[in-house]
């Protein structure tokens, strides 16, 4: 086997995993703490990308674009939380799902109204456009940036949740709402903050990937389901589970698409391998999910106190 | 003859020892009272006997058969039924439908797709009998959720009886009942004794002493005394730990 190719694919898998983690971290946090399942997470992914694209073009600076996108998604998240989401905490999951599906329809149409039906590309600054060489391995600089930023955020989240007072509140919230309010903690404020944090993480995911794929309407609607698969596998509510499962899925999906035909060709004709491989690799992560669920219906790292 | 028996049954919730190596034995067609302060582990014990909770260690034996690994529905079909401390009813069903469904559950599998189960005469007749027995006849067509607290407790028992249990475990059946309702239930349980073995968890001591042939006392998950009711009442440990304060 060609090891440079394997390494290149490993980096692609890592990048996909990181992206999935950014998206699923917010999902699993909001679920773990507020017992809220939020489809509109996909919309913040898209909005982060669009705001960043627009601001980058308008101010002619990627950095300003990023800042605008973070502030913009945070503000939108605040508005959405106050007007809609805060009414949903006490509702059942089906209501939450349908209402946030409504939000997706609204967000998709709003973006269409504002920026038109076509996508927006984000031009990268020249420093990020190059490639980095490691011996025979050539990696686009921007991919390394995505991976670096993602790992940095993962580490920050880990620190935030496990080492700070805010994180202690977050973990306490996951186990006991009443206890929090009897401690005199402002549960409303905590919920709003966590929702905004989750939305900003999703927005970051969107704006990071947009220079590669460009921002497009409904860009989050498919990947959100993959993020669901991540948190199902990881254990709904667990940050650690989300991280492990996101990387697992990133690698399996990427390697499946890249090498499954070669592997299949070992025990079937090249022709049938080339027909079968794409179909199997397309459903590989779902097969993995099914297997893990048969073995552990609550996922790999189910939070203990639920 | 011992009908239901536990061997060193143990269960912990984190730091709490809810069931501490319990050896309990219910004799055929007798009423076995189980008393103990709140949080002693009575409900947890019933849940393990019923198969709702899996014990950490120990065994449950029904009629000389080890049922520790048996699922909850299978235990009910084997003749071991429980009621809930907090009434667990079908709130969208009428009172009659609640009981008729319990009769249906006893009647065999429900993979029947065509006939209208609401008009099943066998189920409805039996359900009416049970409602009559529990004094709920005039409420048959009310929604279960519309019943008073005491009536819900009666319905709870009617449903359990519909499964024709060999062993019936009652978790605080009288809690929330009026005096008259309690009296009626005590009478009913007396009659049931002829063909049913009863485990009665109850805080109403008058009811326990009126009914129980045998008595066990649970404190902090452990049985501190078990035996003939008359003997256990005299047990100094029991008087000190429990009865002393209330009687």
């Amino acid at each position: 086997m060609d090891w440079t190719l394997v390494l290149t694919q490993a980096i692609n898998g890592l990048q996909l995993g990181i992206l999935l983690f950014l998206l699923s971290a917010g999902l699993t946090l909001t679920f773990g703490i507020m017992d809220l399942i939020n489809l509109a997470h996909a919309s913040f992914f898209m909005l982060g990308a669009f705001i960043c694209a627009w601001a980058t073009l308008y101010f002619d600076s990627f950095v300003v674009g990023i800042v605008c996108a973070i502030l913009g998604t945070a503000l939108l998240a605040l508005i959405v939380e106050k007007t809609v989401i805060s009414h949903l905490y006490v509702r059942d999951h089906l209501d939450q799902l349908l209402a946030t599906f409504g939000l997706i329809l609204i967000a998709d149409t709003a973006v269409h109204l504002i920026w038109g039906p076509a996508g927006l590309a984000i031009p990268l600054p020249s420093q990020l456009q190059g490639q980095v060489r490691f011996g025979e391995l050539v990696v686009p600089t921007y991919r390394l940036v995505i991976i670096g930023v993602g790992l940095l955020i993962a580490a920050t989240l880990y620190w935030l949740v496990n080492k700070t007072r805010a994180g202690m509140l977050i973990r306490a919230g996951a186990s006991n709402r009443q206890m929090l309010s009897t401690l005199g903690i402002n549960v409303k404020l905590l919920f709003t903050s966590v929702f905004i944090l989750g939305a900003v993480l999703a927005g970051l995911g969107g704006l990071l990937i947009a220079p590669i794929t460009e921002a497009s309407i409904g860009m989050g609607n498919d990947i959100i389901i993959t993020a669901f698969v991540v948190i199902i596998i990881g254990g709904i509510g667990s940050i650690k589970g989300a991280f492990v499962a996101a990387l697992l899925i990133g690698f399996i999906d990427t390697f499946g698409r890249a090498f499954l035909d070669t592997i299949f060709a070992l025990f079937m004709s090249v022709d049938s391998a080339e027909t079968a491989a794409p179909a199997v690799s397309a459903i590989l992560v779902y097969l993995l999910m099914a297997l893990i669920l048969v073995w552990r219906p609550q996922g790999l790292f189910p939070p203990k106190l639920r | 003859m011992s009908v239901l028996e536990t061997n060193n049954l143990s269960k912990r919730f984190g730091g709490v020892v809810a069931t501490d190596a319990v050896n309990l034995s219910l004799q055929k067609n007798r009423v076995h009272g189980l008393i103990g302060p709140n949080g002693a582990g009575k409900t947890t014990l019933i849940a393990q006997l019923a198969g709702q909770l899996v014990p950490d260690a120990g065994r449950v034996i029904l009629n000389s058969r080890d049922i520790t690994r048996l699922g909850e529905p299978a235990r009910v079909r084997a003749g071991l039924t429980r009621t809930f401390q907090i009434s667990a009813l079908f709130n969208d069903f009428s009172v009659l439908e609640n009981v008729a469904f319990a009769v249906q559950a006893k009647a065999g599998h429900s993979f029947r797709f065509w006939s209208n189960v609401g008009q099943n005469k066998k189920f409805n007749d039996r359900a009416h009998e049970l409602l009559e027995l529990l004094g709920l006849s005039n409420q048959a067509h009310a929604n279960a959720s519309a019943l008073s607290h005491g009536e819900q407790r009666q319905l709870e028992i009617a449903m359990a009886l519909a499964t024709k249990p060999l062993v019936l475990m009652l978790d605080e059946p009288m809690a929330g009942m009026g005096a008259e309702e309690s009296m009626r239930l005590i009478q009913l349980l007396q009659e049931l004794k002829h063909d049913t073995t009863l485990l009665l968890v109850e805080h109403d001591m008058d009811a326990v002493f009126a009914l129980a042939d045998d008595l066990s006392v649970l404190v902090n998950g452990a049985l501190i005394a078990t035996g003939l009711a008359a003997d256990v009442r005299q047990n100094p440990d029991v008087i000190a730990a429990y009865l002393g304060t209330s009687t």
Partner: protein
Amino acid sequence: MNGVPTLHRIGGGLVLLLILFTPFVMLWLGKPFWLDIFTRLVILAIAASSLSLLLSVAGLASFGHAAYIGLGAYAVGIPVYYETYGGADWLASYSGWWHVLLGVTVCALFALVTGAISLRTKGVHFIMITMAFSQMILYLLVALEEFGGDDGLSVDLRSEFVVPGAQVLGIPALNMEEPWVFYLVCFAMLLLVLFIVAKLRHSHFGRVLQAAKQNELRVKALGINPYRYRLLAFVVAGIFAGLSGILFANYAYFVSPSMVEWTRSGELMFMVILGGVSTLFGPVVGASVFVLLEHFLSRFTVFWHLPFGILLLVVVLFGRGGIIGMLKREPKT
């Protein structure tokens, strides 16, 4: 539970009559395109009714119902494709009987396997897992280059339902290419599905599902394990949704992976909720309102999803019980 339905049955009957005759009245008034809209309406009503067996009767919020529509549709698309362009002789056929056999088998198997896994979980797990499995079908269809991948397949001819011997007896074959014949076939299928769902709802089987929806703990304490009953309901609902998919492929002369997008499942769920979850005809009303609104709104603006999203929000936040629920709601005393 027994007194209320009579009024609903009359109302439901009226709704069905209205649906049945409106396109013909419109045809007579010189607006033939209504037949097309109503055909779609009836097909979606079938899918929504099948979902309501899960959602309303069994309380199982399956968010992957569109997968079955897609599987049913491809059970028409693939055999017709092979029959037209050659290949896979064992699969190729224009016969509607074959399409139904294939679609029903595939949907039943898919429901059996995914149901067996997802029914071991509850609540939000169940919702997400059903969603994920339907997404799996989406990606599978996209990956099948042979059948057009993303672009899908066009279906050149509608399924042929030839009854052996009927011709000899002088009974003409069903000409599904004739729009109003096709419409009547779809309508008959809707009646059949509604009839079966109504029967199931009041059967021994349905009572177990309803009981387990309200209090699973108690059902187990009465000696019934609801798992196998739920699994069967899951399979039956999958088959009915598959039938609507078979009709849909015939209706559109086209199948594509986009039929399986989760937003389609969301729309089906919306129809059921919109109509009201606790009645037999709720999903029919919901599907009707959905299709008609979509039709009128999309004539005004390409941005018709906006009012739709807002409506969805309003229904969920304020209109519990859906349209029928609102009509039924007695004034508080």
